[in-house]
């Protein structure tokens, strides 16, 4: 217990230094001191609560190993603790945010209160603006993801199978990847207009590279013993592809897809930042120019949720498709 308290104190000390440094400019020392006085008990309260939950989780083991961290267990209480911990972290962030607002360190148009953001969210959901922009972005994200992944699968397979294609295409692909997508996004707007197409292209381009690498790695990683096996069975090229290469590469392809799902969101928003008349990226730009900070935050959070949901969806499909992996690991 004392170890945890010690750590809690150290944590608060660090936080104090950070706060003092952050508020050095324009805020009196007295204000920052006041802030620290509020924050310190908050932090230690949160830490203590977390510690208590962990103790509760680890209770049976704590008899023999008092300082052991809780293990991932099947007991409902432990699982509850695991679920609560991220919520606790979220609550901490909200609490800190609210404290900063209450102390009026910054004016409301720079750091609006959580309540103001919530109110704005309700408004834009109510008048349909959020849905309009979110659906525009989502369409670009999904189309970009689809085009990028499909192109990467086809080209990645070709590169994995042919050393000639590898030699010809790999330098081009690496050069393309080395250039920041933000840099050539304006070019794409010139070529494809400020409509949906340019966003799909930016999304597809940003998704393309990681997916391509994963495809090449996945196909090249197919065990040669299994290739021999297929050959000995006189399997056709198509049979080797569909019965061996695709399933064998699947785990690597799925990790590529998960990365791509979040990258596609970045791609679409980059496109919208450069030029657009709808979409969350456009909304952020618009709200910023009007100093509507709550709306900026609402739009950003929507993007977070969108990317997280896409990632979750990809993970879900992965878990379904690769059920054999978890079955095998259990034993």
């Amino acid at each position, binding site marked *: 217990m004392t170890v945890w308290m010690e750590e809690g104190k150290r944590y608060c000390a660090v936080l104090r230094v950070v706060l003092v440094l952050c508020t050095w400019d324009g805020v009196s020392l007295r204000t920052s001191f006041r802030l620290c006085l509020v924050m310190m008990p908050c932090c230690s309260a949160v830490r203590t609560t977390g510690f208590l939950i962990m103790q509760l989780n680890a209770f049976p083991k704590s008899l023999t190993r008092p300082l052991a961290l809780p293990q991932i267990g099947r007991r409902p209480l432990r699982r509850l603790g695991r679920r609560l911990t991220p919520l606790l972290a979220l609550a901490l962030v909200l609490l800190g945010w609210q404290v900063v607002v209450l102390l009026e360190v910054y004016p409301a148009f720079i750091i609006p209160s959580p309540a103001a953001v919530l109110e704005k969210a309700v408004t834009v959901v109510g008048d349909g603006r959020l849905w309009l922009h979110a659906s525009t972005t989502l369409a670009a994200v999904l189309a970009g993801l689809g085009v990028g992944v499909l192109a990467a699968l086809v080209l990645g397979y070709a590169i994995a199978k042919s050393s000639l294609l590898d030699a010809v295409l790999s330098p081009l692909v690496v050069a393309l990847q080395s250039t920041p997508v933000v840099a050539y996004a304006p070019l794409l707007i010139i070529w494809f207009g400020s409509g949906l197409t340019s966003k799909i292209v930016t999304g597809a381009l940003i998704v393309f590279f990681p997916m391509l690498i994963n495809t090449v790695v996945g196909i090249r990683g197919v*065990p040669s*013993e*299994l290739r*021999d*096996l*297929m*050959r*000995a*069975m*006189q*399997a056709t090229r198509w*049979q080797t592809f569909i*019965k*061996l290469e695709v*399933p*064998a590469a*699947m785990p690597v392809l799925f990790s590529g897809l998960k990365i791509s799902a979040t990258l596609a969101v970045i791609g679409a928003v980059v496109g919208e930042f450069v030029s657009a008349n709808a979409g969350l990226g456009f909304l952020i730009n618009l709200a910023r120019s009007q100093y509507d900070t709550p709306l900026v935050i609402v739009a950003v959070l929507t993007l977070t949720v969108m990317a997280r949901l896409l990632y979750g969806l990809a993970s879900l499909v992965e878990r379904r498709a*690769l059920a*054999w*992996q978890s*079955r*095998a*690991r*259990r*034993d």
Partner: protein
Amino acid sequence: MSARITVSDLAAVYQMPGGDTLPALGPVSFHIEAGSFVCILGPSGCGKSTLIRLLAGIQRPSRGQAFLNDQSITQPARRVGLMFQDANLMPWRTVLDNLVLPLEVAGVPKSERLAAARALLPALGLADFEAAYPGELSGGMAQRVALGRVLIQKPDALLLDEPFGALDAMTRERISLDLLDMWERQRQTVLMVTHDIHEAVLLADRVLVFSRRPGRIAADIRVSLPRPRRLEDTYGALFGQIAGQVRAAISQA
């Protein structure tokens, strides 16, 4: 149905990165009668595995030819079953799906191939495991699946490259006796590479002892033990005598 194997002046040479050549096998010539069980013994790196790959048609010889019945082996054939030290199962397929793979590739209708696999399961000792994934199996079980995957094609000849080499002694003995049992019923021609004298004498009609690289036949020993054979036979005087003969041939090779 079983096939005879004829090897005539067969040799394999590997190209090394520096432009050097490494003779791995032969030249060797021998003949295996249809339906007989032949084991190959020899020091490691003597080209035993190369011989298996050549006979399976997944590697081309540098010289000479091999024949299955009277047909020259130039590419893999379905009537030849091939099995390695590793089970090489597809981890995403269940035991049953791994077993039916050769039939699936050959285009056998689904109901037929499932029936064939289910008929094999008891003899393989896998009756309760058809829905298990390879990751859930022990090494011995996995190897049984691999054996089943070879047998399901009803091959005329089996080429086994140290199929039980990675298993512990107990498992190995049990699975080789099961193999013997199934072979007694089917009588395919079997060519099996092993480095276990005991196993070779217990299973084979003939033991070919290979010399150091490049592998050549150093001894051709007939195993005159009566069939069907049992584990108890290994304690007999004749068994000991033949095993001693094989051991002597290996140390001279």
